[in-house]
């Protein structure tokens, strides 16, 4: 979409019509004490030559991603990005600061998002996916709100303490000004959610469990479903590694009511931690309770296929205070990216990539075991797992990061104080056997 600035003449002729002397006079109705008189403190403009050298200087502080070896995930994963993705999303029709929602000019974007929704719904085994949210954490917080809004009496949502720590924080932030509250479900010695603890919990509108959980372990969704039914609470499944569902039975297959999580793994670069991609899906029953944008397929006046935003009556410009969310924007370009990624890999490709991730993670765990690391849990995982590390590992890890750009695991102690000397490791398809052998050698030397 083009950006057309107003010329001096444009402004003059508009002012003549509105009857204002200057542009400033337009803002006369704003009280003086609310206006700033100091202006905006930004430096003067630079010449093209000066600007270029300034930007080159800034860019030289970055180290290209490809020079790093990541053995960490924890919500942001290093995956290969097919070269079709940067090519397609750089096209001016897609790469715009504004998502062209108007059907008369945005059929390409709307069709792209519609296909994204379809593939996300298939990946997670659900009926409907929204056009996306800011990130996994906000999608999950919206899921918690759906359960609280739709439950007739309950005011509490139970969240596993193995849901990503940042996501739990976002839910807390959303709920702080409301009458609703979040309680945390403790974890077991196996590194899984202690579902037995739910027995004594009441007043539950929703129960939220992440799988693979923050430790990488696979949770027992079948049992979660049973407990949710017994407690009359919505089953909210979450995830941070969307690729895992290339291999694992998806949450929809277990009867989840809502599935919310992070889609960064689907072709989106890590970009210093964001923007991510919030995926939110529900069953047909939740259709009118979902927040945010939805793209639907329809027919035009001539009977031709077309795409439009649909079910807009849930949204704030129509429903006001009863809207299903006050964030009705979406991460359009990231959604498009994930859509292209899923279309590129296909059903078979995503399974193969997922299998590679799992195989490499197993090889990494075995290699670390051989050099004195001890698995913290004996529980099936996807591409992340927790290890108790030998003495002196912290120093070696920091040296590896500094000298060789190798990132060997994340210290879990800041998130789980009881897990001193425990690190969360990850292996994806971007890590080679040589990388793993090299790491195992380095951490023992």
């Amino acid at each position, binding site marked *: 979409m083009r950006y057309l600035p107003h010329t001096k003449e444009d402004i003059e002729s508009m002012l003549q019509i509105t009857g204002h002397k200057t542009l400033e006079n337009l803002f006369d109705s704003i009280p003086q004490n609310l206006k700033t008189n100091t202006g905006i403190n930004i430096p003067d403009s630079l010449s093209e030559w000066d600007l270029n050298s300034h930007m080159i200087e800034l860019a030289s502080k970055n180290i290209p991603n490809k020079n790093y070896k990541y053995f960490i995930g924890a919500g942001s994963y290093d995956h290969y990005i097919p070269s079709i993705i940067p090519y397609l999303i750089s096209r001016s029709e897609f790469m715009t600061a504004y998502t062209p929602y108007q059907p008369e000019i945005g059929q390409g974007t709307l069709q792209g998002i519609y296909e994204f929704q379809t593939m996300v719904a298939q990946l997670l085994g659900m009926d409907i996916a929204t056009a996306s949210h800011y990130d996994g954490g906000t999608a999950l917080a919206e899921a918690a709100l759906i359960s609280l809004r739709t439950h007739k009496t309950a005011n509490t949502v139970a969240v596993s303490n193995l849901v990503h720590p940042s996501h739990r924080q976002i839910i807390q932030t959303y709920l702080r000004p409301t009458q609703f509250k979040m309680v945390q479900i403790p974890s077991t010695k196996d590194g899984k959610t202690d579902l037995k603890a739910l027995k004594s919990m009441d007043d539950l509108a929703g129960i939220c469990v992440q799988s693979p959980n923050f430790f990488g372990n696979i949770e027992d969704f079948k049992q979660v479903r049973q407990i949710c039914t017994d407690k009359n609470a919505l089953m909210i499944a979450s995830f941070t590694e969307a690729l895992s569902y290339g291999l694992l039975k998806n949450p929809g297959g277990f009867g989840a009511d809502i599935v919310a999580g992070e889609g960064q793994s689907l072709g989106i670069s890590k970009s210093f931690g964001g923007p991510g991609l919030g995926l939110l899906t529900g069953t047909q029953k939740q259709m009118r309770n979902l927040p945010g944008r939805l793209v639907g397929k329809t027919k035009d006046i001539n009977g031709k296929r077309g795409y439009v935003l649909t079910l807009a009556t849930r949204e704030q410009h*129509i429903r006001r205070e009863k809207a299903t969310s006050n964030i009705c924007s979406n991460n359009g370009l990231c959604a498009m990216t994930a859509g292209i990624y899923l279309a590129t890999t296909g059903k078979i490709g995503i399974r193969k990539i997922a299998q590679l991730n799992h195989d490499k993670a197993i090889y990494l765990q075995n290699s670390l075991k051989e050099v004195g690391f001890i698995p913290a849990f004996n529980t099936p995982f996807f591409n992340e797992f927790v290890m108790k590390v030998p003495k002196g590992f912290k120093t070696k890890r920091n040296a590896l990061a500094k000298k060789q750009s190798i990132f060997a695991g994340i210290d879990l102690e800041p998130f789980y104080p009881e897990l001193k000397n425990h690190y969360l490791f990850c292996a994806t398809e971007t890590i080679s056997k040589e990388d793993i052998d090299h790491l195992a050698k380095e951490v023992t030397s």
Partner: protein
Amino acid sequence: MKELNELNLPENIKYTKDHEWIDLSKDLVTIGINDYAQDQLGEIVFVELPEVGDTFSQGDEFGSVESVKAVSEIYIPISGEITQINEALEDAPELVNESCYDKGWLIKIKPSDPSQTKDLLDKAAYLKMLKG
């Protein structure tokens, strides 16, 4: 949209200021939205109804009617327990437009406080309210 004199407002039922209608002639009381409401809303695409067994107090919101341009809450004219809901509306919400007093009824209730009927409007009083 219809002029006030074009509205279909039967004499034998009562109305509320929120444009619901209520038929008190049988033991089970039937409730819906009236011709003015369906006409103002336009093409109705979804009706959200409570579950059988739910109880509501006079004036409570018991569901909503969604048209292509708006969602409107619907309020219960008198207190009572839901004994029946119009399940046909799930697949055919347009019945509310086509036949708001007959096939497009919303709920049947067992009233819990018959004295509340004094708050309801007859056709003349309702029309007077519409004319303002």
